């Protein structure tokens, strides 16, 4: 059993809570009394945030789809397919034919390197996220 301080994954209030772990699974949420925004409280979504983490519908294998049919794939072949296809599209149509959608759900560090990849590796500024939605 352990409790780890995390940032709530839902709205922009930025509440923190302790995620309760048991045998490697998230099993509960404990509010943080000291946190300046949450002050020991949470909304109903925050209180149950542990429930989706170990949900059986989580995807646990890369998938590749040909035509209408999707199949499980290894990380290696998925990485290769994505990398090769991005390179060949860039070669044929230019970097303007590539676009990247980042996420208001991911960390600052992930957003930063995703935009770095778009800009430094592919030389495109076609990067955005759902800030407008």
């Amino acid at each position, binding site marked *: 059993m352990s409790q*780890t*301080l995390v*940032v709530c994954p*839902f*709205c*922009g*209030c*930025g*509440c923190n809570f302790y995620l309760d772990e048991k045998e490697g*699974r998230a099993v509960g949420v404990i509010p943080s009394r000291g*946190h*300046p*925004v949450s002050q020991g*409280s949470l*909304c109903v*979504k925050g209180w149950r945030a542990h*429930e*989706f983490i*170990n*949900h059986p519908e*989580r995807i*646990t294998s*890369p998938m590749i789809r040909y035509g209408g049919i*999707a199949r499980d*794939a290894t*990380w290696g072949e998925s*990485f290769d*397919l*994505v*990398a090769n*296809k991005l390179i060949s*599209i860039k070669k044929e*149509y230019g*970097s303007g*034919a590539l676009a*990247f*959608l*980042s996420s*208001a*759900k*991911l*960390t*600052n*560090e*992930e*957003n930063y*390197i*995703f*935009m*770095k*990849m778009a*800009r*430094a590796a592919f030389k495109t*500024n076609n*990067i*955005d*996220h*759902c*800030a*407008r939605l």
Partner: protein
Amino acid sequence: MTNSIQEFEDAEVFFVIGSNTTEQHPMIASRIIQAVRQKAAKLIVADPREIKLAKFAALHLRHKMGSDVALLNGLMHIILEEGWEAKEFIKDRTENYEPLKAVVATYTPDRVAEITGVDKDSLRKASEIYAKAKRSMIIYAMGITQHVAGTDNVKSCANLAMLTGHVGYPSTGVNPLRGQNNVQGACDMGALPNVYSGYQSVTDPKIREVFEKEWGVNDLNDKAGLTLTEMIDAAERGDIKALYVMGENPVVSDPDARHVSRALRKLDLLVVQDIFLTETARLAHVVLPAASFAEKMGTFTNTERRVQLSRQAIAPLGGTLPDWKIICEISSRVGYPMNYDSPIEILDEINRVTPSYAGITYSRLKGSWGLSWPCPNEDHPGTLFLHKDQFARGLGAFDAREYIPPAEVPDEEYPFTLITGRVGFQFHTGTMTRKISILEREAPKAVLEMNSKDARRLRVTDGSIVTVESRRGELHLPVQIKQDIPESMVFSTFHYSEKNINELTICAIDPVAKIPEFSCAVSIRRI
């Protein structure tokens, strides 16, 4: 937000416009309600619906959908007429005041009452309450921004705050509430087509030079890229061939959903990286399974600009990888190696190239509740409220705006206005919350909220199934009669992919911010 959430305690007036705060930002709403109940703060709510917060309001302005600029100009008109403006603040800290005066002069109470549907007495009361208090805050959310006049609405809020000197002090300011836990951070990090991290422009050669040096490249693209809505249009035209989507679900979240699916199906490559097989992932050529927030460490920036460390609570679920590792791997395989050992190393790099984040280091975050930017160096305590003594640009520029109507107004064929949003028990496209049993129990399905008078006219009752149709699509939805919604307006949510309301919404966009309007005209038929 120009203020911090803790400053809400000492605000005297809250002017909440276009934010259903109790549902979308519950912990901020409870601050407002506490201040009203315990400290006699005054609350003005401007919203066509009688949202929960309106029950605590001294005044509720039920202005017509999309009439925000007229309403705000009308308040400024009265403030100037009565001499309630902050003369010294205007003189010392602002510019372009004369053009603003000229524009708001034409927004007489009679004209504004006509456009907005708000009576003149209420307009006057709202002006007086907001202008005369010492510490007034404007609070807004997507009800202000998601309009073809979204930029005009935001500028009008800023005009009102500057006219009354209600910005740049503790508990006094303009506070847009951000809807996702890291939408502020994603913007701060430059996941936007025109800026690098810290809002540094991609068109500025000096800034490009800084990033070229840090990133070891020499030919960064100097033209702003496409926004999300423009990417979708470009994909439909065939100009975008590959789209890499990470942690987003545009098939459900974007307006005119059929158009979105059609465009995504045309791509040569659609990569979706997510924790669940979202509706967008179902269309992907390659799906990459990511670890959830609990399975990695990293920082998130909340709506008050507070950068906080989230720790790793459990190991990544078997078969998944943290997003940052996936990105490093793809980047390395296309010939641009990224060899970060951990997110801490990435944060170090962010500190180096992002002046507003320069002092927000891992070692400081580790032992604190976070730091609010701007935080230019390691000795800086962070910034609770913005624009103290002077605005970021120097003088605050008034930018007078004229009212324009929404893109699609009701007519004979489509006589109702459909507005969309969220409820407190679900979140966005439901990818996470629909996996949570208690939330599904409380809000299990999409409904169409409707006024009882409209229901009577249509001869429907609670639970009746109706066909809701717009120029873009139609859906069958059960009616829920609500007294908080005005006549001729209906409301539904975009949480339910099996009844995707965004098949009906409109992708008319604000010309500056490129934000879509969503709200549109619909017809409703009993089945």
